[in-house]
């Protein structure tokens, strides 16, 4: 792990917020290490609907949050265009939405500086024919969709270019506190089991819904109220535009086109443990019923899977709000930077909770401002101005690009390993070159392999085969074991996502794939019975 573990700051949690904090600290000259117990973006960041908020969903109830969203929306479009699809958003008034809300919507947007234009409903129906024909008014706002994993990668790459680092599969197992200071942190490599001790000057917890567990390591209490949000992934984009109900935000009222699929969000349900929850058929049915108010044919469209994310909800005690406001700047209720010096007497520890992916950069800025103040660093924040690495100004994501690139090569200049998502062998090779030792699941997040209708049935063994071939080349020892993990793990996870939505073609698909694997391919023989895989009650993220 390198010679020196002399980091200025340790950031815990590799979601968007952690990556943003890492980047900001690095750009301000603080040598920082980010650690993540899994792969990047495997927590809440990777388990949401992919919306780049315009702020429209908050204008009525939290104008400050709305204002923050639109500001960050504009910044992200500038600094991370490749991670964003400029879908635009509609806020539509269905017969179920109250008149007073609809009537006041434009004014509320104006008050929060959110661009909002009412368009003729006929225009909306022409653009999106699947919309409910009973929609009576349509407002257009600058919503979009975000690719979270790519965004994290870009932030990490920028931080690395500024002398900092990020380690995945490193779990924080303990922190040593000496009076009012954290003096060291102990990490365990989740794959090799090896243990590392580091001695940062400062610790920032970006662990989201898991923040309570991190704080508890130094006897600090952070009471989180994890809120489960369930989402449904549809096989095709029935809309190219983000569509929101024009009402006070609630369950099943937003459809976000992300890559090749469309995601219906979401629900809100308190859970005790962010690692244990289940999705029920009833929940799925309720979501579809609501979603049908936006797209009446939703019930007949094919679902790929259901998944859920856990929101890092936090209700700050009054004294926290007061402490945060000491410097005279009002912090939106959307996120909270907890100064454990002021709150709990731990002088080099800060936790950031709440917030949303759209505002991750702003959350990082607020957090790092506080850290810098404590460490006496005066460098200003530059994360809003500098375009991220591997991004081309103005070149936003376009759905057709993979097909176009493949077609430009005559439709056959590369082996398509994942046929649903057009992941080619060179793409996979490139990813594996850049991420040595990664898992097939990491490859999935990085390339979208296995995310289409067959849910990995036709590509997982190919990916495992390629990994095997590469591993053999360098003489790696555990080729077969890692292939087993890939194939079994992938099939298990995909199965879990199918379970609550098992019906129609997707169940038929699942049955066909199990038939192939359990029949001619003998997949069961790969299962090692001595150490049954821990089966967490968590469905995997999928977009």
């Amino acid at each position, binding site marked *: 792990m390198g010679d020196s573990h002399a980091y200025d700051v340790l950031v815990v949690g590799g979601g968007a917020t952690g990556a943003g904090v890492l980047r900001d600290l690095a750009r301000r000259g603080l040598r920082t290490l980010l650690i993540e117990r899994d792969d990047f973006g495997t927590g809440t960041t990777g388990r949401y609907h992919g919306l780049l908020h315009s702020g429209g969903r908050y204008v009525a109830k939290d104008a400050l949050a709305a204002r923050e969203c639109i500001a960050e929306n504009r910044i992200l479009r500038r600094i991370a265009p490749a991670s964003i699809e400029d879908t635009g958003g509609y806020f539509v008034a269905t017969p179920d939405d109250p008149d007073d809300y609809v009537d006041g919507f434009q004014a509320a947007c104006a008050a929060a500086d959110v661009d909002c234009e009412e368009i003729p409903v006929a225009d909306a129906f022409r653009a999106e024919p699947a919309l409910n024909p009973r929609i009576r008014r349509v407002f257009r706002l600058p919503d979009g969709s975000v690719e979270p994993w790519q965004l994290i990668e870009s932030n990490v790459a920028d931080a690395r270019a500024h002398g900092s680092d990020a380690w995945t599969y490193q779990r924080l197992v303990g922190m040593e506190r000496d009076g009012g200071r954290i003096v060291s942190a102990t990490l365990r490599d989740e794959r090799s089991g090896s243990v590392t001790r580091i001695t940062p000057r400062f610790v920032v917890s970006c662990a989201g819904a898991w923040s309570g567990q991190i704080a508890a390591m130094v006897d600090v209490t952070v009471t989180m109220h994890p809120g489960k949000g369930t989402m449904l992934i549809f096989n095709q984009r029935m809309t190219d535009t983000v569509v929101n109900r024009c009402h006070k935000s609630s369950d099943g009222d937003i459809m976000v086109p992300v890559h090749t699929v469309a995601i219906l969000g979401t629900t809100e349900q308190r859970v005790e443990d962010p690692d244990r929850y289940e999705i029920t058929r009833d929940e799925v049915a309720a979501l579809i019923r609501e979603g049908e108010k936006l797209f009446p044919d939703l019930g007949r469209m094919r679902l790929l899977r259901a998944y859920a994310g856990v929101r890092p909800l936090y209700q700050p005690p009054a004294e926290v709000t007061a402490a945060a406001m000491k410097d005279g700047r009002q912090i939106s209720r959307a996120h909270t930077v907890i100064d454990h010096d002021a709150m709990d007497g731990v002088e080099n520890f800060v936790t950031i909770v709440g917030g949303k992916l759209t505002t991750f950069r702003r959350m990082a800025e607020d957090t790092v401002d506080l850290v810098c103040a404590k460490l006496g660093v005066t460098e200003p924040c530059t994360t809003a101005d500098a375009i991220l690495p591997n991004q081309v100004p103005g070149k936003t994501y376009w759905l057709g*690009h993979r097909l176009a690139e493949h077609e430009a090569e005559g439709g056959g200049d590369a082996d398509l390993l994942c046929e649903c998502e057009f992941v080619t062998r060179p793409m996979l090779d490139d990813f594996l070159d850049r991420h040595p030792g990664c898992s097939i699941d990491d490859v999935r997040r990085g390339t979208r392999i296995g995310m289409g209708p067959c849910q990995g049935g036709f590509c997982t063994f190919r990916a495992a085969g390629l990994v095997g071939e590469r591993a053999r080349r360098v003489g790696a020892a555990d080729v077969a074991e890692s292939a087993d993990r890939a194939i079994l793990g992938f099939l298990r996870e995909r199965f879990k996502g199918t379970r609550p939505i098992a019906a129609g073609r997707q169940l038929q698909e699942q049955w066909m794939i199990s038939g192939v694997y359990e029949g001619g391919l003998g997949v069961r023989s790969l299962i090692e019975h001595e150490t049954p895989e821990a089966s967490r009650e968590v469905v995997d993220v999928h977009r």
Partner: protein
Amino acid sequence: MTIAELIFDAQEEAVGYSSDECLKCNVCVTVCPVARVTDLFPGPKYVGPQAQRFRTGRAQPVQVPGTPFALSPDLTVDYCSGCGWCTTACPAGVKIAEMNSQSRARMKAGKRPKLRDWGLGQTDLVGQMGVLVSPITNRVLFNGPIRTIMEWTVGIHRDAPFPRFGKRTFQSTWKRRQKRLGSRPLPGPDKAVVYFHGCSANYYEQHVAAAAIAILKRNGFETIIPEQVCCGLPMISNALYGDARKKARKNIDALVGYARQGYRIIGTSTSCTHTIKAEYHEMLDVKDDDATVVANATWDICEFLLDLHEQGKLDTRFGRLDEDLPYHAPCQLRSHGIGLPAMELFALVPGLRAADMDHDCCGIAGTYGMKKEKYPIGMAVGAPLFDKIRASGAAEAACDSETCRWQIEKATGTRTRHPIEILLQAYRVADAAGGATPGPLSGAGTRAP
């Protein structure tokens, strides 16, 4: 509504959404005649339900090099011949071929059609001009050097099958005949049918029209032939949807009056009849009431004759034809979903040993196999069929679709006829033996067999 009902309903659903039904199982790939013989076509699953997921109404923000700066990133879908086997074999009801046809149209929408694609689509125009100067055109079309020049300039392969133009159109022959006979009262729908001759019988194969009229008369039906134009399929295949829609409109307007009175519309080209039955609605989105009435009244001639037989109304007094008859069922016939009516009719002819060649596609697929870059593909697709027909040693073969007949004839040297020509021959044998039945119309323009 249940998913089970929806699965049936999906037949009526938008073609694009039918990719929701796809199981990714590759069955379509196993039956694709084109993918079997060439690497230029990546196969129905790839260009169909897979590529469909990446098709969007949004333009590229920054152009991907090597692609048109347009909505559609498709290029390879042009190699789909449209034979429809993928749709047939799909266990889940995905309308793959139809999806491909739409994508092809979209791909070409932004671009001016190639002169050749335009020409192959304009069967009426080409036909009219060809007939006008048929001695010259026939000489040109069967002249090697000139065909080479055509290949260079407009991209029609020099060896592609091309029919001979008739001396005049069937329509003009028919009009003259009607004039000669003078006006007569129109018999009722149980005594007359409307004949949709299509381009091939009009411009090239007037003998097929003559056979149809004779067979219908033999079974108690007068023939009504209203003014009509090309069904529009060649334009659909060459992605000229606007032109195709105009043709559809003209035909519907010409036919709907008869259809509403209960007259059935009989066609001798399985392609034309399928276009009227299904593609006006599915591909061209022409789905008003008139279109539906016309579609519902349309029959393929063998389908119609077999229906007469089911009702005990077909004259089955066929004479003996002691011969082997290889039969090729054209792709378009399969899309009708009516089984193989010609084979059932052949079974009524004493001595006739008709054999279904049981081969998927002859390779011509409308005008696909005529194009310079696709001609070798078409020939490779049809090769096993040609081998079988040659191996049969039969003097003639039968097939319901004109372009397939030309392709088979050109490739095998075996005369290939419409099934009704065979049936007519059987009637004639009976007549020659027994005598007194009324003879068939001796139509002008009939080519000597």
